[in-house]
């Protein structure tokens, strides 16, 4: 499969994010930002601007919370 066709989406679980910004400054493509709203525990939380993710996993590994960041790969369903 052609690598260029892969599309990645980071998903941030709003109520598990503590707003430490580690993912925001670790992202090589700078596609994560901190929301100006608060989650239910009172933290600002990270969000994906919607495009540009390369699926490198930096945000996943730098995030201290077990399940706050997960990254999905969207593939063309050839099979």
């Amino acid at each position, binding site marked *: 499969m052609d690598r260029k066709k892969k599309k*990645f989406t980071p998903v941030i679980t709003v*109520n*598990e994010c*503590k707003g430490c910004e580690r993912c925001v400054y670790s992202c*090589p493509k700078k596609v994560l930002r901190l929301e100006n709203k608060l989650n239910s525990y009172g*933290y600002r939380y990270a969000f994906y601007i919607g495009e540009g993710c390369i699926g490198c996993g930096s945000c996943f590994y730098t995030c201290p919370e077990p399940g*706050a960041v997960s*990254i999905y790969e*969207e*593939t063309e369903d050839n099979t």
Partner: protein
Amino acid sequence: MAKKLIYGKPSGFFDTFDRRPGITHSTHYCPGCGHGVLHKLIAEAVADLGMLDKTIFICPVGCSVFGYYYFNMASISVPHGRAPAVATGLVRSNPDCFVISYQGDGDLGAIGFNEFIQAANRGENMAVFFVNNGVYGMTGGQLAPTTLPGQKTLTSPYGRSVENEGYPLKVCEMVAALDSPVYVERTAVTSPKNIRAARAALRKALTYMKEKKGFSLVEFLSGCPVNMKRSAKDTDEWIEKNVIPYFPVKCFKDIANERKPKQSPVGIYDKEKVKDSLLATEKIHPSDESELPVPDIKGELRIKCAGFGGQGILSLGMLIAEAGHLQNLKASWLPSYGPEMRGGTANCSVVLSREAVGSPLVKTADVVLAMNQPSIDKFSPDLRDGGILIYDSVNIKFDNPGKCNVYSLDASMIAKDVIGDVRCANSVMLGAFCEIIRSIDEKSFISSITNNFRGKEKVISMNIKAFQEGRKAVRK
């Protein structure tokens, strides 16, 4: 289009965390904490290597003490700094299990350094993950052995002075100098690049442990944004600018390929034999062998025996406890004595009960047996109203305050004149106790004496005689 999860919560974590109701998906760590980053790496690596059901994670004392709420593996919490000692026991008794000792700089570098360095020197098959953030994070950011020179902490407000506190402890360098450890590496959990290097090092250590190559140490330089009073980003930058030059991030030693896997030691104890000897007391007095009924004691019978060392106070307590035990009472015996072999004061607390004994301590006594003046002065006020006081009138002057039943007998005199050995005075007291209490059978006391002095026929007959004299003296 199909969605495929490529990075998600590792299966080394529990699905939900039960630490606190309401917050079931996030950890207790502060935002930006290095522990969280490392936890994820460990959970992922252990799951990927298929070691989840064989790994024991040792939670240290520190912020990561709650690790057992998060990791889906066997966990044990140990006293401060003792993780490598406990890990040694675990790995020696279960050679097929894998032990991760997760320790902070206070746990490993300060209070537990000896346990750690000895385990490293023995080359136990375990992985130590040393989280070095340079401060005591859980208690509010005090100076740690690994605090940098000049670094301000709560207890070094003017910065660490090397004249006063010395230089930071370089743990990896010290361990690498030993012959036993197979793998020593220092990494940092700061930038994504460093985190990936840390991930690789951690996996390497776990792989060596799985291959039973021996002791691995991986140090993780991590941040504590709250105590360093910086944002997570500034903390990472500060570590990369200041800490990494002092604590170089590199592999110090990797000789696992030269080592053969450790052989599982053959146990020197036969499990069945150990079990038998532990349960031996149960077998001496099985309930169906005793013909005597269980004495009718309401609640607990709390007894205090006191005197000076050498009078046989502790033996007296032991004889009473054993007599009770022979009639299937639950018994406890708690001695208290000074360092002297003779002289000094001695006392013991005995509790007899039909139910399991709650506390072996006797604060309010039902019976006090006193054999010298200081004892009666000290313990007679502890008697409950209506309690029984038995004392040796040869040594003691006592005015009955009237709230308890007092029995006095010339125990020492009887032992000396009638039996011919003053050392039997305790058996005379035992006889008196038997006669006064009545609920425990005379035969039990005699068996108890026989058991205690087993093999010394002369002593047994002398003590039984003294016991009978004691009973007689009370009857008068």
